[in-house]
């Protein structure tokens, strides 16, 4: 690990930091920054994504929520990066980072409320599911447009710097597909030139819906793109929660100290469909998916490590899983039973004074409901 960070920038951007091997054994020493408490907390965050996504996808199939984009298989990249943040930091997520918001403190019920678009939803039911937000933990609502997260994150960080709001860091998440978008390059350029306190984090799950990585870029890696912009770039095993945590922690520390941006590529695999509207068996070899699912699973290797280290035995693990499952079921039951947002919320929040046509339409709607 020390040798990875001591290497030259090209070696960092083309290599792959690995701390926890797929079999659950550690490569050398586990970083001293990771103790038992943090490890178990991260494991719980990952477990939450695994259990929650299975339930939520079932809800979508049953017609109880309209859409879902699951993150199973990518739990380490999501939680490992979120765990490196501190209170007050900002998260600008893409589709699969709700788990990062939950780790940062967004209440689970708030997330589920957004999926139902009910009266408890902070967005008042106006967004497609998977677009939660939480002002209390600076978890920004996802912009569905690919790569916009990068300029948003860099912009927020630049604003903080201009406003003298020192000591806070912004993390912006993008996918592999986003790195081909103009927004990504604009943001990287601004980050490199103005050096705001930002971490751009690419979850390279190797599939931009149906576009595979090899059709996405001819670059040796995604991380090397950062070097051209003068942004130090790390490349880590995205299914290794320790590698993700350690790389992000270093990036966050550097940003907090005023030493500028970092770009991180976390190499992972999207073992599920892009979203509930997608069927990956139509365009990819699912035997490769199975290899990732069984041989490189981020939760399995972490569980093996935790048990071997004596940090979480099988009994405690089972109890934890049961508790998480109960929490998920309770949150779903509560939010499913919650009322819809008030009818008037359909026309609010755009005009300061409601124009006549909206007043009229609202009255017509009221007659029908």
């Amino acid at each position, binding site marked *: 690990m020390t040798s990875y960070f001591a290497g030259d920038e090209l070696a960092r951007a083309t290599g792959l930091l690995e701390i926890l091997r797929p079999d659950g054994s550690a490569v050398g020493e586990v970083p001293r920054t990771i103790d038992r408490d943090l490890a178990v907390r991260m494991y719980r965050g990952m477990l939450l994504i695994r259990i929650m996504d299975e339930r939520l996808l*079932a809800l*979508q*199939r*049953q*017609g*109880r*929520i*309209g*859409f879902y984009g699951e993150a199973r298989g990518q739990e380490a990249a999501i939680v490992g990066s979120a765990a490196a943040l501190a209170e007050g930091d900002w998260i600008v997520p893409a589709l699969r980072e709700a788990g990062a918001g939950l780790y940062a403190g967004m209440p689970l019920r708030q997330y589920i409320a957004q999926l*139902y678009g009910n009266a408890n939803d902070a967005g008042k039911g106006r967004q497609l599911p998977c677009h939660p937000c939480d002002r209390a933990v600076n978890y920004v609502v996802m912009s569905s447009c690919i790569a916009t997260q990068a300029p948003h994150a860099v912009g927020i960080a630049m604003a903080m710097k201009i406003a003298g709001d020192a000591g806070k860091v912004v993390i912006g998440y993008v996918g592999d597909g986003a790195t081909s978008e103009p927004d990504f390059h604009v943001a990287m350029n601004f980050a490199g030139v103005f050096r705001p306190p930002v971490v751009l984090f690419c979850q390279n799950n190797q599939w931009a819906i149906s576009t595979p990585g090899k059709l996405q870029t001819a670059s040796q890696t995604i991380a090397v793109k950062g070097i051209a912009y003068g942004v130090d770039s790390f490349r880590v095993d995205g299914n290794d929660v320790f590698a993700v945590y350690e790389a992000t922690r270093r990036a966050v520390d550097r940003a907090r100290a005023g030493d500028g941006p970092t770009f991180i590529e976390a190499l992972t695999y999207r073992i599920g*469909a892009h979203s*509930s*509207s*997608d*069927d990956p*068996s*139509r365009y990819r070899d699912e035997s490769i998916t199975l290899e990732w699912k069984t041989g490189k699973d981020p939760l399995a290797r972490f569980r093996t490590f935790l048990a071997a280290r004596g940090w979480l035995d099988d009994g405690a693990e089972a109890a934890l899983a049961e508790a998480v499952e109960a929490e998920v079921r309770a949150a779903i039951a509560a939010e499913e039973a919650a009322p819809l947002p008030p009818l008037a919320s359909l026309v609010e929040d755009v005009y300061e004074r409601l124009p*006549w*046509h909206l007043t*009229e339409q609202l009255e*017509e709607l009221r*007659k*029908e*409901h």
Partner: protein
Amino acid sequence: MAFEFKLPDIGEGVVEGEVVKWKVAEGDTVKMDQPMVEIMTDKATVEIPAPKAGRVARIMVPEGKICLVGQVLIVIDDATNGKAVAVAAPTLAPQPATAATAATTRAPEPSLLRRVLATPATRKIARELGVDLGRVPATGRNGRVTTADVRGHHTGVGASRLATTITTRPVVQETPVTVVSIGNEERIPFRGVRKAIAANLSRSKLTAAHFTYVEEIDVTELVALRARAKDRAAERGIKLSYLPFLIRASIAGLRKWPSLNSSLDEEKQEIVQKHYYHIGVATQGPQGLSVGVVRDADKKSIFDLAREVERLAEAIRTGKAARDELVGGTFTISSLGQLGGVLATPIINFPEAAIMGVHKIAEKPAVRGGQIVIRQLMNLSISVDHRIADGYDGAMFLQEVKTYLEDPTLMFLEMV
């Protein structure tokens, strides 16, 4: 109680799915979230887990059948007391208009009829005039209140009456005709192809506003060309008539005057101008007239066209033409060959926009440079739907066809 599970929108905007495989059977006890059924939509094949625990009371859609979004897929009895409830997609799943679902319990739908349909501009005018839109009789499409309705209602003039006379198609009241027998007659059942021809042509005649235009063509050079090419064609086993040349010349005309290669979409109120050229050739079959369609005729050589025309004619004569060889034309040519006549008023092969009648080629005196000479002359009659195209378009089209037929070498200069 019986829980009716309706197929939700499992993609984004899917309207139906095919039941691929049931993983439960009627009478089975199912657990919540147990794999229940595989559904294939146009986006993905997905597995739907059981939405309730209970006993499978009824599978409403068998394997291999299509289930519309919003249609009941399965009924699960969860063994509690209470009335049947239907829980479906919380989103805007359209209610399918099938008898099967009409019979099942469902929440009353908000009636669209109670809602006044009007454009924002009409609403603004109504508001300015102080007119309550709900009291204005609507004459627009789908019950829409138009600006004219609002103004008419405001001034007390029955705007609706005025609008009705414009938008309503006259209805022809028909009393079936009875023919009383008064002598030696034969009664032939009126059905099949004869009846279809009658229906199609009456519809065309009653709908399209026909006008017919006739032009004389000097085909002396075409006759000579065809005479030369005939033997070459025969070597390849092709019987070369004048039709391939007429098709090619027509396409040149249609390219230049595309309103004749159009159809009127009455429902959408749009003229559909087609950029493909499927040319129908009317052929006498054993049971009556049929039109064989030469698809993408613009992409075929003269010999290819000859082969295709011959093949279709043979298929029609022997009654072996497939249905899709007889439909989908964009323009029709009707030729009586050597019978031909002098002129005709062909009836458009509806909903095409035009039909061209081809008449007899005969040696006739013609005046060329002040001298009377003997030339090969032929007439072409074209009937056009005046709703879509004007007389000018028809005349100019025929002029274009004439240019090509009188100087057939032009056809080859533009060949693809």
